[in-house]
C-alpha cells in the first residue's frame, strides 16, 4: 500500500472506531469521549504551533478562552443566535492568536514563552476585572434554548457526541491536509532550521504567524464548541493550567504527529480519571507525567513509534 493510502486508512479507521463507540460505549465513557474529542481539537491546534512549527507557547488558554467567551458572551449579553455566536468564537481565537503573534513573534525561544504567558495572564486578569459581564471564576451557564441552531439541539448526550465527532473529523482532515501541503512542509523546515529556510526565500515571520493563527483558530473552535456543547463558560479555562494541558497532551501523544494530540488527550484524560479515583492528588499525576515525559520519552507515544517502525506516519 502506498503511504497516502496507509495514512488515509489509518485516520479513517480512527474516525470509524469513534463512530462505532458512539453505539457501544457505556454512558460514562461516551460522555468522556465527547469531551476528549473537543480537547483533542484544542491540542491539535497547539500541535500545529508547537509540534510542527516549533513555537512553544505558554499562552494558548487565551485563544481557547477567546473562543469560549466569543461564543458565550455574544449569546449571553448580546442575545445572538448560536450559529453566528459560534463563528464569532472561532474567529476570535484566530484573531487573538494573530494579533498576539504580530507582537510575540518578534521574540523567540524563552522570551516567546514568557511573552505568551504574560499576555495570557493579562487576558485572564481582564476576564476577572470585568466580572460584572463575565461572572469571573464562577462563570455562567448558557441556557439550553439559546444553544440550539435551527432545531439542532446540542444538549442531548447523543447529539453532543456526534457533534464533537464531526468537529474532530473536520479538524483532523484539515490538519492532515495542512501538514501535507506546502505550508506544512515550510513550517517543519522553519522548526528545523529557521536560517536555512530564510535563505531559501521563505519568510519565517509570515509562516510562523500563519501557523499561530491557524493554531488559534483550532483553539478558538475548541473553546466555542466547549461552550456550545457543554453550556458552561468560566474564567477557569483561561488560567495557565489550560495552557499547560495541551502541551502535556501533545508531549504525551507525540509532538508533530497528526493523531498524537488525540492520543495524548485520551491517555491523559483517563490517567487523571483513574488517578482521581485512587487519590485526590491529581495535579501530582500531571506533574509526574510532565517530568517523566521530558526525561524518558521526549518524542511521545506516536513520535517514538514513528522513529522505530512507522516511518510513514504524518
Amino acid at each position, binding site marked *: 500500500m502506498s503511504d497516502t493510502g496507509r495514512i488515509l486508512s489509518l485516520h479513517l479507521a480512527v474516525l470509524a472506531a469513534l463512530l462505532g463507540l458512539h453505539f457501544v460505549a457505556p454512558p460514562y465513557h461516551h460522555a468522556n469521549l465527547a469531551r476528549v474529542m473537543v480537547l483533542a481539537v484544542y491540542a491539535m491546534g497547539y500541535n500545529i504551533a508547537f509540534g510542527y512549527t516549533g513555537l512553544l507557547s505558554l499562552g494558548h488558554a487565551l485563544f481557547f478562552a477567546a473562543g469560549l467567551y466569543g461564543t458565550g458572551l455574544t449569546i449571553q449579553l448580546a442575545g445572538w443566535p448560536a450559529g453566528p455566536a459560534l463563528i464569532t468564537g472561532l474567529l476570535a481565537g484566530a484573531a487573538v492568536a494573530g494579533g498576539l503573534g504580530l507582537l*510575540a513573534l518578534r521574540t523567540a525561544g524563552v522570551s516567546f*514563552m514568557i511573552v505568551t504567558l*504574560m499576555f495570557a495572564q*493579562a487576558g485572564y*486578569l481582564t476576564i476577572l476585572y470585568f466580572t460584572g459581564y463575565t461572572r469571573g471564576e464562577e462563570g455562567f451557564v448558557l441556557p439550553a434554548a439559546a444553544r440550539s441552531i435551527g432545531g439542532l439541539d446540542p444538549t442531548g448526550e447523543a447529539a453532543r457526541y456526534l457533534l464533537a465527532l464531526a468537529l474532530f473529523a473536520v479538524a483532523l482532515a484539515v490538519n492532515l491536509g495542512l501538514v501535507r501541503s506546502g505550508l506544512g512542509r515550510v513550517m517543519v523546515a522553519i522548526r528545523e532550521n529557521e536560517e536555512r529556510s530564510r535563505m531559501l526565500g521563505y519568510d519565517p515571520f509570515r509562516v510562523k504567524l500563519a501557523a499561530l493563527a491557524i493554531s488559534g483558530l483550532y483553539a478558538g473552535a475548541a473553546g466555542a464548541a466547549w461552550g456550545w456543547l457543554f453550556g458552561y463558560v468560566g474564567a477557569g479555562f483561561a488560567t495557565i493550567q489550560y495552557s499547560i494541558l495541551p502541551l502535556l497532551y501533545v508531549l504525551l501523544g507525540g509532538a508533530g504527529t497528526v493523531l498524537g494530540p488525540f492520543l495524548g488527550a485520551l491517555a491523559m484524560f483517563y490517567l487523571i480519571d483513574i488517578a482521581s479515583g485512587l487519590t485526590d492528588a491529581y495535579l501530582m499525576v500531571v506533574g509526574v507525567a*510532565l517530568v517523566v515525559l*521530558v*526525561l524518558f520519552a521526549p518524542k511521545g507515544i506516536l513520535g517514538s513509534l514513528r522513529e522505530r517502525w512507522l516511518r510513514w506516519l504524518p
Partner: protein
Amino acid sequence: MSFGPYLLLAVLEGLVSAAVLALTAVGLGLVFGVMRVVNVAHGAFFMLGAVIAWMVADALPGPPALGFAAALVVAPLAVAALAAAVDFGVLKRLGYDPDATIVATIGVLYIVEQAALSLFGPDARPVQAPFNLRLQLPWFGYSGYKLAVVAAAVVVLLAVWLVLSRSRAGLVMRATQIDGETARAFGIDTDRVYAGVFALGAGLAALAAVLVVPIQQAHYLMGGDPLLLSFIVVIIGGLGSLRGTVIAALLIGVSEGVVSVFFSPTLAKILATLLVALVLVFRPQGLFGRRAA
C-alpha cells in the same frame, strides 16, 4: 488620615514587598543568568520555604523567636537541598535544554504544590513574628518587624553581591555563565556549579518566604504571585543583571504598593503584565540590561 501620611504608608508597604521580591527575583535571575534555565518552579520553592517555616515553628516549643530563628536556617537549607536534587535528577539529565527544562520545572511545580496540599492542607496558617515591636510614627503605628525584613533583605543581597563579585565561588559562577565550555576546560566542575546555583536560587526564594510568612500566612498556592512578579522584575531589570534586578524590584514593589492603595489591584496587575510583555517584545535586553539576553 491626609494624603501625605497615606502615601508614606503605601511607600513603606511597597518597600517591604520590594525587599521580599528582590530576594526572590535575584534567586530566579541567578539561575537564569548562569544556567539559562527558566525555573517555573521558583514560586513553588518560595511556597515550600513558607510551609516548612510553619512546620518548624509549629514543632518547636518555646518563644516564637526561637522557632522563627530555627525556620530561618532549616527552611532555606531544606529547599536548597531539594533544588539540588531536582537539578541532579532532572535538569542535568535534560542537558539544560531551555524548552525541556521549562516543561520539567512546570512538572516540579505541580508536584511540589500537590505535595504541599496533601501534607499541609488547604488552610492558610500564620507564623508568629519573632518580636512585636511597634514603631509609633506621628500619624500611625508601623510594625517594626516589617522594617526588619527590609534590613534583612538588604544584608542578604549585599552578601550575595559580595560572594558573586569578590569570592572564588562567585568567580567560578561568572566564568561558567560566560562560557561553560572554557570553564570546564580550566578544570571547573560545571555540574557542581549548576547544582550549587540552582540550590542557591531556590534557597533565596525560601529565605524570602520565611521572612514574609509572619506578615502573610503560609498557603500552598502562595507561590503564584511571587513567581509572576519575579519574572517581571528579572525581565525589566535585564536578564542576568543583579543590579538591574534589585532596581527593578524596588520600582515594581513600591509602585505596586502605591498603585494598589489607590487603584484596583487587578488592574495594576493587568498593566504590569502587559508592560512586561511589551518590554520583552521591544526591549529584550530589559530596561537596565546592556546586551541582548
